[in-house]
């Protein structure tokens, strides 16, 4: 086999100054959430729901001048309309921050298919769908269950454990490492990559570029390792995959690897952590689930609705008047599926967690063509993580509610979650 020269040059992402537009970094307390919102301030991370509920009643589309300008719709109807309208809202960046990639990066974007627009999007997505069906991901279930047991075995002798750090975190890290064919011991590094990319939004641009560069260097090393020793995993699959009769470009391969690594980790980690946080605080729900394990799949969907971990972003394509506001080209949209999921116009008792909710059209995994590719994987991991936890640990409570910390940015979940086990 000839040498694959696609990967012999440095990737643009890792070396060059990116083209695109940088905006002024504005941080500090929010004056009015309707006109100055920021999803990176501690008040939002700690409890975004009252803010979103208030905005939904009085706004309902909030604005900010931070991040170079953006909008925050809070009604289900508006969130859904934007998710479906790929003509007027682009996915060329899906992380709202102080950097807008150049317009000509569309329709591929930096990490296809999440960053892609039609018509390219469907082709990039089609390549990945077979690996993420319910049947395909079920192959990871036995190893996931064994890992959950192992993690709980390690609690032996401890009265208080950090369920976010010592349990939830490890599950998606190990699963996605196995699927991509990365060394399982690199897991802690992945956590740094995730934090760099998703939480380091307001860092100075040079530092941000350097951190993103570290991720791409790591991924490129994995590509080289797979070129030397091809395996039955997603990395080798992407290296060999073809679109329109050609192998994928190097930045497509590595961008998709970055997506699969990052998107699979703190999202599911957050979903597992938030569910355990809820159960630790609500003994009636905890006891009911312990007594009725068959209810878990239904309860899980309710946790996903009420504590949806993922908010996406879009960029407005052209100036327009939209649902009562004047949007400008390249304004951000913070596409809050969590806010949509708590809209009383869409859900009865929207602000309550009803663990036997029968009708639950929540949007935790998005709506439309960008439906979370990993949703079947996330559901498997969440179900196995909760089943195993509930079967092994009967009673648990928050050890110190004030010690719970939450991630910042577009993915929300507990990052410190001390639970007292009894």
């Amino acid at each position, binding site marked *: 086999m000839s040498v694959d020269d696609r990967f012999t040059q440095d990737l643009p992402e890792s070396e060059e100054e990116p083209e695109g537009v940088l905006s002024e970094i504005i941080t500090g307390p929010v004056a009015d959430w309707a006109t100055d919102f920021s999803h990176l301030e501690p008040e939002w991370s700690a409890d975004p729901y009252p803010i979103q509920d208030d905005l939904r009643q009085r706004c309902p589309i909030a604005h900010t001048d931070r991040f170079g300008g953006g909008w925050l719709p809070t009604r289900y109807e508006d969130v859904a309309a934007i998710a479906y309208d790929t003509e007027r809202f682009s996915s060329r960046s899906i992380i709202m921050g102080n950097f807008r990639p150049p317009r000509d990066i569309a329709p591929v974007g930096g990490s296809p298919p999440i960053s892609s627009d039609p018509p390219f999007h469907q082709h990039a997505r089609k390549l990945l769908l077979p690996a993420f069906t*319910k049947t395909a991901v079920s192959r990871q279930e036995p190893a996931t269950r064994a890992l959950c047991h192992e993690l709980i075995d390690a609690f032996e002798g401890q009265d208080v454990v950090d369920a976010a750090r010592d349990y939830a975190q490890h599950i998606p890290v190990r699963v996605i490492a196995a699927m991509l064919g990365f060394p399982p011991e690199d897991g802690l590094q992945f956590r740094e990559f995730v934090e760099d990319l998703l939480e380091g939004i307001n860092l100075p641009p040079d530092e941000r570029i350097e951190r993103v560069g570290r991720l791409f260097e790591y991924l490129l090393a994995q590509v080289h390792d797979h070129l030397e020793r091809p395996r039955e995993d997603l990395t080798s699959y992407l290296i060999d995959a073809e679109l329109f009769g050609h192998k994928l470009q190097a930045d497509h391969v590595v961008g998709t690897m970055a997506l699969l690594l990052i998107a699979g980790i703190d999202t599911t980690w957050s979903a597992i952590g938030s569910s355990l946080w809820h159960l630790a605080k609500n003994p009636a729900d905890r006891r009911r689930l312990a007594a009725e394990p068959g209810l878990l799949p239904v309860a899980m*969907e309710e946790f996903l609705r009420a504590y949806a971990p993922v908010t996406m972003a879009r960029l407005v394509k052209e100036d327009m008047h939209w649902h009562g506001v004047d949007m400008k080209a390249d304004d951000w949209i913070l596409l809050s599926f969590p806010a949509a999921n708590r809209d009383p116009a869409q859900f009865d008792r929207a602000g309550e967690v009803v663990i036997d909710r029968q009708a639950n059209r929540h949007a935790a995994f998005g709506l439309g063509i960008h439906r979370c590719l990993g949703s079947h994987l996330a559901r498997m991991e969440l179900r196995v993580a909760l089943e195993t936890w509930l079967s092994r640990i009967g009673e648990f409570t928050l050890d110190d509610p004030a010690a719970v910390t939450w991630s910042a940015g577009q993915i929300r979940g507990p990052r410190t979650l001390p639970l007292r086990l009894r």
Partner: protein
Amino acid sequence: MKVQINPERCQGHGRCYDLAPSLFGDDEEGYGQVLGDGTVSPDQEREARLAVVNCPEHAIEVT
């Protein structure tokens, strides 16, 4: 009673084949498929309704 999936709307969330596995399956890309001709027997009606009210894309039609 019969169920149908609108393929224009289905995005492969898989709620139908999770909740009503006797009526729906998935294809090799994870999109929902109606099993057989979609006829719903009386003892499948509850499952069919669950699938309808849990599809985030409103892709399931009952006739």
